[in-house]
């Protein structure tokens, strides 16, 4: 049975809000990290694609924050900019820096890491979005249909980069494999629903954590098989769980930069 905004029980509302924060915060941070590549990607076509994907992803985050606003969770802009790290529900993977250095100074970012993170994150997002298209919460199901369309091109793009670099020179392969290890170390909370797991799964807002993990593994298997790579394993329990508000210092720094302009004058209309 699908429900609309008006006939929610208090319990349902808590579960939906919790899931929406996870989705919104994930895309918000992913888009921000992607935007830090602006002007730095290996060539101009990659730069255009990367910024376009970041822009789309920020649009997805904005839409999830709007759904939260519709549920009375607060103003969408405030939710994006004014919440502290401890209140954020994004997974650790999306908050990690792009590499050493700072964007405004001397960024020594790691493109292999960007490709692996983006490919595996986008694949995980696709699995969730596919499931959300049948969500019991109708506004979320409708939004998912919209995101799914745009995600098609993102996934295609990162898969091509992943395949190309993984079957390129030894240097490229080494960098990619090192990046794969880093990314997988952080994958333990990607499919976690945090402390609302039971309610989220019981009310069929989205498939279970186990289903999502299995679908994700199945979705990357053909590519890993073609590349003769061992299928990556999702860590059983994450060192830190972003869905519980546990985060790294990377998030603190990102939030300071991200909100700098907004906090100068929160009532300004940009």
């Amino acid at each position, binding site marked *: 049975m699908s429900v609309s905004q008006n006939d929610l029980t208090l319990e349902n509302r808590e579960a939906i809000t919790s899931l929406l924060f996870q989705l919104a915060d994930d895309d918000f941070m992913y888009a921000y990290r992607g935007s830090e590549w602006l002007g730095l990607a290996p060539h101009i076509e990659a730069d255009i694609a990367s910024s376009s994907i970041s822009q789309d992803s920020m649009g997805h985050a904005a839409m999830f924050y709007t759904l939260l606003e519709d549920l009375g969770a607060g103003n969408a802009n405030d939710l994006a900019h004014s919440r502290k790290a401890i209140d954020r529900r994004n997974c650790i993977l999306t908050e990690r820096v792009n590499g050493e250095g700072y964007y405004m100074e001397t960024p020594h970012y790691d493109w292999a890491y960007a490709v692996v993170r983006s490919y595996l994150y986008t694949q995980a997002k696709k699995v969730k979005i596919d499931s959300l298209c049948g969500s019991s919460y109708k506004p979320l199901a409708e939004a998912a249909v919209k995101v799914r*369309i745009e995600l098609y091109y993102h996934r295609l793009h990162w898969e091509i980069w992943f395949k190309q670099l993984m079957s390129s020179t030894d240097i490229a392969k080494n960098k990619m494999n090192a990046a794969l290890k880093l990314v997988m170390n952080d994958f333990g909370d990607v499919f976690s629903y945090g402390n609302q797991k039971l309610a989220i799964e019981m009310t069929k807002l989205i498939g279970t954590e186990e289903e999502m993990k299995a679908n994700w593994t199945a979705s990357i298997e053909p590519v890993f098989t073609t590349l003769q790579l061992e299928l990556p394993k999702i860590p059983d329990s994450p060192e830190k769980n972003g869905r519980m508000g546990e985060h790294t210092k990377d998030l603190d720094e990102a939030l300071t930069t991200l909100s700098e302009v907004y906090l100068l004058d929160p009532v300004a209309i940009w």
Partner: protein
Amino acid sequence: MTTFGKVSTEQVYEVLIQVKDPEIDSVSIIDLGMVEKVTTEGNNVKVVLLPTFLGCPALEIIKKNTMNAVNELPGVGEVLVEFVFHPPWTSDRITEKGHVGLRAFGIAPPPRHFEEDGSWHVDCAYCGSTYVTMDNIFGPTACRSILYCKSCKNVFEAMKPVSTLM
């Protein structure tokens, strides 16, 4: 004193033809299939729009331009313009007139069909040649791709096809 009759939906559609894509001035939001519904109640008007791409920065401008255009109608009362996500905007909502307008701007209209493998083909927006290569699926805006024509040797753009079947 002048008195005005009720504002009709036909009148609203009439003015919406004047609301162009801020980046492609040969195509209106009606041609793009962005206008989902127009309703009137007395002299109050509600326009429901569909966003093309969720992160498109032109959406706010389009909303403002739509408000301004409808407010020009004589005797109009309250005007409400809102974006909804459902139904999702797809590129097959672009009308034939929209296709003509896109071509006039040098952008190949989105193809109506996908190949079995999900790829798609457009002809050159300038010379019509079919000998083109995809340069970048992503382009200067979220909705466009960049291609190269081997015949007239021009770089050109195409509106990306998007469909719920993808």
